């Protein structure tokens, strides 16, 4: 490799060495960690009990508390000889993940009828006439501002949070999928009819199968808005959940617990996204890009 010149940075045809490129991709992470440590050390010099930027020991304690200690509001008191697994099972992070995860999965399941509706809107002219304009309008509604109405209709328990997620994400998803359905070439639909398919064969066995990989990709993009709405809901009224814990901890600046929680949520989202991507690739080998 030729010697590196500074102009290579703005060279589209540059061919960086693989090792160097790998190292470079880690650089920003290292800088972030470094800056955090720098701030933390400075703040601790000034105030040894600083909580805004917890140091390694504080973080370790926070992680230990979230992973091996039961939540404060729980009745469970671990026996002295309780195994790590036993403690982990009753820890607050497990409890919070389970309850947030349940809300998340139910909302995800409720998006399936939304996708089916979108399929019908995009394909069946009568459905399009009936729903499209309303969904277009509804999509522009800021779901959070409807909260008082959601409380009246769904109560303040689980369903209002789930409704918040679904109302927040479903219209966008429906419009997106409708576009995909409309983008399926007319030839395909005509061809299917000449092969003696009926309307539902065309809808579910031709069009739906073809847009499914795109639907999954659209879902992947919507994971973050979903989590955002879930967090908003849990911060407004909840008695458990990941965002509930963050809201409670924020009240006394428990950044030592909040930071691990934030990273855990990021990891969960990443994992869901990755598994959806792999699933997509496995299920739809014919799908390109």
């Amino acid at each position: 490799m030729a010697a590196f010149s500074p102009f290579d940075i703005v060279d589209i045809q540059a061919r960086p060495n693989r090792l160097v490129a790998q190292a470079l991709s880690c650089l920003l992470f290292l800088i972030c960690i470094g800056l955090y440590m720098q701030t933390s050390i400075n703040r601790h010099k000034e105030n040894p009990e600083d909580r805004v930027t917890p140091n390694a020991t504080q973080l370790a304690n926070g992680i230990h508390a979230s992973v091996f200690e039961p939540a404060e509001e729980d009745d469970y008191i671990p026996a002295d000889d309780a195994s790590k697994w036993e403690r982990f099972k009753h820890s607050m992070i497990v409890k919070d993940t389970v309850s947030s995860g349940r809300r998340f999965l139910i909302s995800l399941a409720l998006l399936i009828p939304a996708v089916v509706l979108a399929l019908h809107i995009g394909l069946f002219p009568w459905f399009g006439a009936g729903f499209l304009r309303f969904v277009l309008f509804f999509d522009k509604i800021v779901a959070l501002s409807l909260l008082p109405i959601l409380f009246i209709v769904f109560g303040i328990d689980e369903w209002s949070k789930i409704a918040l997620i679904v109302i927040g994400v479903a219209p966008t998803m429906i419009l997106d999928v409708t576009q995909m359905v409309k983008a399926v070439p007319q030839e395909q639909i005509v061809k299917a009819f000449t092969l003696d398919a009926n309307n539902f064969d065309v809808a579910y066995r031709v069009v739906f199968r073809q847009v499914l990989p795109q639907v999954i990709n659209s879902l992947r993009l919507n994971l973050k808005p979903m989590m955002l709405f879930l967090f908003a809901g849990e911060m407004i009224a909840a008695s458990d959940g990941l965002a509930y814990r963050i809201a409670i901890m924020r009240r006394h600046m428990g950044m030592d617990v909040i930071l691990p929680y934030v990273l855990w949520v990021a990891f969960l989202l990443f994992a869901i996204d990755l598994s959806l991507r792999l699933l997509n690739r496995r299920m739809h080998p014919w799908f390109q890009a």
Partner: protein
Amino acid sequence: MVSGVSAPVKVANETGTVVAMPSPAATSIHVDGVSMCYPLAKKKQRTVLENISLEIEDGEFVVLLGETGCGKSTLLRMILGQERPTSGKVYVSGKAVERVDARSGYVPQKYSLFPDRTVLDNLTMGPETSKYHILGRLMPGFRSFRKQVRKEAMRQLEHMGLRPTDAGKYPHQLSGGMQQRVAIAQALMMKNRVLLMDEAFSALDPATRASLQRLLKTVWNESKPTIVFVTHNTAEALYLGTRLIVLARSSHEDHCGSKVALDMKLPGNEAGMSLKKNGQEFLDLVDYVERFSRGNRHDDQALDESAVDGEEEAV
């Protein structure tokens, strides 16, 4: 219309083959006084097809020829049922066409195969869906039926010149020519008597195109289905068809739609016509036909262009 009727007789004499006019009794496709108008802005409308009537007999290989925008594809889509004529009616196998159904097979230029299915699944899809609809697939007889259809599909596949190893491939793994072979096979699996092809070979390179033309000719010779083949390539039309219909408009005004400019019988033997075989006679015929497709307007530039076009693409 008058010239359209008189032309076939004349040409038939020239090529030395005498063919009788089709008798209405044996018609497979009957186009009855069909017009097509699209609304434009400000209450204007554009007429694409103007009062077209055709009788297509069972077993005819009809080639619809015309310049781009003359409405030949629109006519095909009306026979298919995808578009509804503004006035007039279309009948296929004696019944009026209201919507797309399994009376006709269809091979478009692009997107002719389902990208999410393997070649084999593309072939079996027709028989499967026509016998078992979406929930019928859960019925007990389905599996054995599927086995049988698969066997037949493999036969059809080999007949179309594909290797058995291609059966498991997805359409995107095949070349354009292979895809169209599979598309034809897919339509043939339905065993319907009418096959509609819309510029089916237009996107292919000349060599592939020639081999597909030969394939199609063979297929037609074997079972003699009724084929309506839309193309803008005169050489292709002369090689394939037993009957040639040229659509053209007499002027470019919006209110003036295309009419049948020429309707003639071709020799339609097993070999078909080509430059190699028929020599000067073929070139004369190309020239003659193209004069009609330009709507008898003697536009020098257009003439030069299409003449070159025809020579290049002639097989």
